[in-house]
């Protein structure tokens, strides 16, 4: 066992390994390329020598005597017959060869200049400059030196040294052997290294030419035994075998006095093997391959890239006690809950410590085994951990005997059970609401289930989205998650101080249908809706012609707190010149008195995510428990309601009568003609120029204006035919989905297509498509689409539409990548800042970053639209509506907190996402 020891790292130094160091840290010298003998035992002084560590359980390390998990392994080394260049240092070697004299080894600069450069470096060091400044100065020195042709110290003539990728140097066409290179580097005196940016106290340049090669421990390159009993070696081992073989042959040939040519060939081969051992993707040489033809994964490949050690094992890891699957909706769940498939629940466990108080219960739990066969789901136990640390897997067979042995001090790993708290997450995790704590509900089938109201914070839909789940393993973590991370604690967003969790889509439609106008439900319908609630009292019915009925407003009021009072405009309000208030014809003025919806329609502005005012007020004034209850209740209410009405939409929702179509056609052809007139006027030179614009710009602006108006007009004509009996209109007007603009593009006219905010102009020589005359500036030739999605587009129009559509796609692609990078940088900068109890923001060094969080100490999710308090609302509360109206001589306050202008900005933010 490794005992934890905490020490503070003062500094880290990087240097090259010297041959002496390599030999000193080596546990054994490797001389033979063979790994195992015929009996399957590792050969001494081979690549699998037991001195290098152990990988087989039961064996002991010959160096330290440790067993498998105790010994981390030990390095060995290979003595190379001839020196070999290390590819990783090739740039440094080249620089050193070019800047120093070939015969005396000094820097190719006169003494005074060396001194100057040295002083410049010392100054940087003194000023506390970082490594980059340092490198910059050293680079300058190297640049000065490498241009000299005569050595100022010994007068030797210098020749040009070039690098033949990847590892051979040439001097005037003559090849330098690694040995020669090493000799030159050895000649460089210590005092000349510093001006080149090298600290001679920690490294010598000749160490970049290897004379000994470290052999990593076997734990770094474990061999695996296949099912067939065959051994399969790691890629690194394969590579080291190659190195050893060639090294051996090279030594033999050299010692036997073989011809220079053969020795040189072998030397080069050794260089190749060692180069590919370091990096098998070195450019200029073919990668070393496995027998099967697969390129070997050598040292560099282990570290580099997405699948490398850094990105996939160090910055991010796979974790235990987690699950991932497709999500699907379930309106019967609370927003605080998450549905987990039985199969997943039986794999995910929570450790429970056995105490004298729970021992009996736990024995019963263990007795059930890992797969209890009860009618309802009950948690079983997967593992039992004895006080000595031994883990025993519980099976159906051993469950009973193990249960008997359970005693205080044991820990059992219990399967998930209803009510457990887990973390639920969807990528990309851009804000804190991307990971929230949910309570477990065990369910059949294979998907995670969630309430639809939590879709907006996760930005989830059900077109195949998958989500992750993490089971918390400690009591502290669970407590923290329950208090801080539970869904209900995140209803109000810190981004804009309004609700991010709330009704969407069908919930809004359902409540709209229920509450709009004088909607009535008979006893059967009422019971059907209310039967979804566990504990609710049937309100007093109204009566007409002896028939009992309940109004939708009455039923909706059941979800409201009994002392809630507010009044504001619904989403469907058309902003009439003088608001009729309670008598609004559209039923768009919402008034809630003592928890009763007196008038008005419930829509996006009332309960919607991002905009719901009632939701906002309840979350703020009544707390998160009440807000959660409210959201759960309106979910039930909305689903109950929409299932009574039935709701569907289809292409025939965009059907409009022939006269309307004719009207639209007239409007459009008039507009097109108007544009033609403008173009003619421009060509005749009688177009009146707008101030500050060229004639061309005037034409563009004018025609855009005309065509824009025409499209709006067409939309209006189409819109007039589509009333509130139309499903698509209900969705658009109530804010459930889509907009009236979408509808007018489907039913009326698509309008002008634009790229970069201008009419289309590019494509062919002086025209957009060959279907038009060159220089045609008319509406049709410049991307005006006069048909609708419903009627279908002309081929040219279809092409223009895809031009406009392409711009949108490119924009989003560019924007997401850019904002993703910005987000990353921001998060890295703020990562471990913390607001302390005294209100200061501090970093991990405990130094102050901000004296008061946000300068005002306000939690943006608790404040109102960024302000600490809403004075108007408090006044309204304290004074009552009448007095308040007198006090504030202006109009009666129309909204709670959120003002109309704020709303539009929120809307824009939402759309941008």
């Amino acid at each position, binding site marked *: 066992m490794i005992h934890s020891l905490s020490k503070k790292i003062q500094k880290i130094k990087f240097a090259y390994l010297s041959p002496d160091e390599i030999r000193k840290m080596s546990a054994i010298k490797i001389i033979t390329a063979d790994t195992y003998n015929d009996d399957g035992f590792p050969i001494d002084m081979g690549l699998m020598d037991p001195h290098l560590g152990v990988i087989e359980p039961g064996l002991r390390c010959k160096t330290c005597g440790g067993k498998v998990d105790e010994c981390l392994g030990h390095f060995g080394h290979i003595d190379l017959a001839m020196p070999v260049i290390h590819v990783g240092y090739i740039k440094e070697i080249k620089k050193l060869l070019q800047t120093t004299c070939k015969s005396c080894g000094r820097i190719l600069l006169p003494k005074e200049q060396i001194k100057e450069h040295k002083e410049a470096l010392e100054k940087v060091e003194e000023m506390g400059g970082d490594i980059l400044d340092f490198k910059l100065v050293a680079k300058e020195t190297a640049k000065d030196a490498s241009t000299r042709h005569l050595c100022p110290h010994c007068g030797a003539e210098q020749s040009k040294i070039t690098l033949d990728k990847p590892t051979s140097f040439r001097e005037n066409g003559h090849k330098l052997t690694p040995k020669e290179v090493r000799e030159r580097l050895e000649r460089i005196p210590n005092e000349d290294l510093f001006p080149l940016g090298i600290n001679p106290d920690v490294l010598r340049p000749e160490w970049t030419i290897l004379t000994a090669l470290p052999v990593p421990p076997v734990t770094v390159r474990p061999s695996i035994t296949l099912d067939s009993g065959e051994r399969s070696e790691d890629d690194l081992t394969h590579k080291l075998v190659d190195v050893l073989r060639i090294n051996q042959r090279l030594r033999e040939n050299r010692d036997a006095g073989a011809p220079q040519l053969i020795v040189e060939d072998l030397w080069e081969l050794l260089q190749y093997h060692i180069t590919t051992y370091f990096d098998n993707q070195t450019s200029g040489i073919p990668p070393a391959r496995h027998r099967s033809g697969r390129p070997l994964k050598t040292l560099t490949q282990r570290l580099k890239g997405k699948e490398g050690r850094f990105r996939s094992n160090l910055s991010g890891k796979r974790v235990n006690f987690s699950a991932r699957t497709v999500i699907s909706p379930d309106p019967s769940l609370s927003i605080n809950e998450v549905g987990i498939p039985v199969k997943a629940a039986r794999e995910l466990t929570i450790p429970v410590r056995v105490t004298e108080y729970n021992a009996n219960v736990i024995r019963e739990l263990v007795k059930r085994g890992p797969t209890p066969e009860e009618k309802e789901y009950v948690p079983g136990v997967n593992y039992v951990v004895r006080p000595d640390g031994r883990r025993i897997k519980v099976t159906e067979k051993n469950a009973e005997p193990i249960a008997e042995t359970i005693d205080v001090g044991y820990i059992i790993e219990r399967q998930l059970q209803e009510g457990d708290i887990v973390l639920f997450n969807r990528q990309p995790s851009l804000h804190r609401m991307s990971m929230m704590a949910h309570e477990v509900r065990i369910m059949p089938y294979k998907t995670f289930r969630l309430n639809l109201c939590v879709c907006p914070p996760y930005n989830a839909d059900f077109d195949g989205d998958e989500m992750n789940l993490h089971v918390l393993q400690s009591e502290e973590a669970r407590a923290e998650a329950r208090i801080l991370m539970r869904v209900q604690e995140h209803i109000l967003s810190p981004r804009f101080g309004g609700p991010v969790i709330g009704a969407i889509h069908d919930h809004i439609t359902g409540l709209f249908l229920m509450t709009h106008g004088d909607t009535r439900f008979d006893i059967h319908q009422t019971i059907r809706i209310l039967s979804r609630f566990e504990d609710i009292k049937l309100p007093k019915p109204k009566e007409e012609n002896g028939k009992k009925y309940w109004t939708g407003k009455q039923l909706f009021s059941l979800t409201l707190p009994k002392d809630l009072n507010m009044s504001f405009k619904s989403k469907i309000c058309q902003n009439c010149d003088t608001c009729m208030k309670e008598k609004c014809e559209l039923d768009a003025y919402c008034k809630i008195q003592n928890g009763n919806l007196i008038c008005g329609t419930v829509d996006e502005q009332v309960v919607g995510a991002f905009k719901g005012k009632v939701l906002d007020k309840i979350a703020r004034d009544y707390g998160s428990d009440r807000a959660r209850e409210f959201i759960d209740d309106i979910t039930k209410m909305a689903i109950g309601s929409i299932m009574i009405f039935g709701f569907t939409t289809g292409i025939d929702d965009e059907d409009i009568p022939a006269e309307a179509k004719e009207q639209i056609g007239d409007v459009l052809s008039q507009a097109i003609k108007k544009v033609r007139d403008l173009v003619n006027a421009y060509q005749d030179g009688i177009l009146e120029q707008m101030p500050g614009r060229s004639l061309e710009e005037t034409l563009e602006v004018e025609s855009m204006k005309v065509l824009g108006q025409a499209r709006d007009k067409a939309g209006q004509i189409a819109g007039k035919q589509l009333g509130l009996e139309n499903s698509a209109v209900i969705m658009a007007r109530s804010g459930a989905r889509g907009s009236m603009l979408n509808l007018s593009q489907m039913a009326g006219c698509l309008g002008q297509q634009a790229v970069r905010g201008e009419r289309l102009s590019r494509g062919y020589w002086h025209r957009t498509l060959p279907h038009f005359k060159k220089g045609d500036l008319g509406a049709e030739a410049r991307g005006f689409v006069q048909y609708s999605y419903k009627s279908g587009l002309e081929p040219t129009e279809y092409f223009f539409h895809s031009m406009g559509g392409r711009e949108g796609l490119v924009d989003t692609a560019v924007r997401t990548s850019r904002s993703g990078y910005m987000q990353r940088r921001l998060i890295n900068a703020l990562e471990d800042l913390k607001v302390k109890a*005294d209100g200061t923001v501090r970093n991990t060094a405990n*130094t102050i970053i901000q004296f008061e969080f946000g300068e005002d100490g306000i939690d943006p999710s608790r404040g109102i639209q*960024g302000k600490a308090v809403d004075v108007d609302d408090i006044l309204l509360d304290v004074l009552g509506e009448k007095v308040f109206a007198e006090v504030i001589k202006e109009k009666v306050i129309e909204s709670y907190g959120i003002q109309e202008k704020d709303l539009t900005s929120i809307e824009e933010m939402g759309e941008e996402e």
Partner: protein
Amino acid sequence: MDKLDVRSNELVPQHIPLSREEEKELLKKLGVRKGQLPKIRKSDPCIKILEQIGEVKEGQIIKIVRNSRTARISTAYRMVIKG
């Protein structure tokens, strides 16, 4: 001094050097050591001017009062360091 005094620009917040006693009091109030405060370089244009007037030394605490979007006025403290 014919050079421009940056402090006269409305975008430059007020820099007020604290006295020994005020420093002591502040550190007591905040419950921190001097080193835990944010820093300001001696080469900062404002500090340069204060230095010329002879009001600041290295290690002294400067009170900075600036306009804030959230709190209208906010106060921060910085310790003068070399550089």
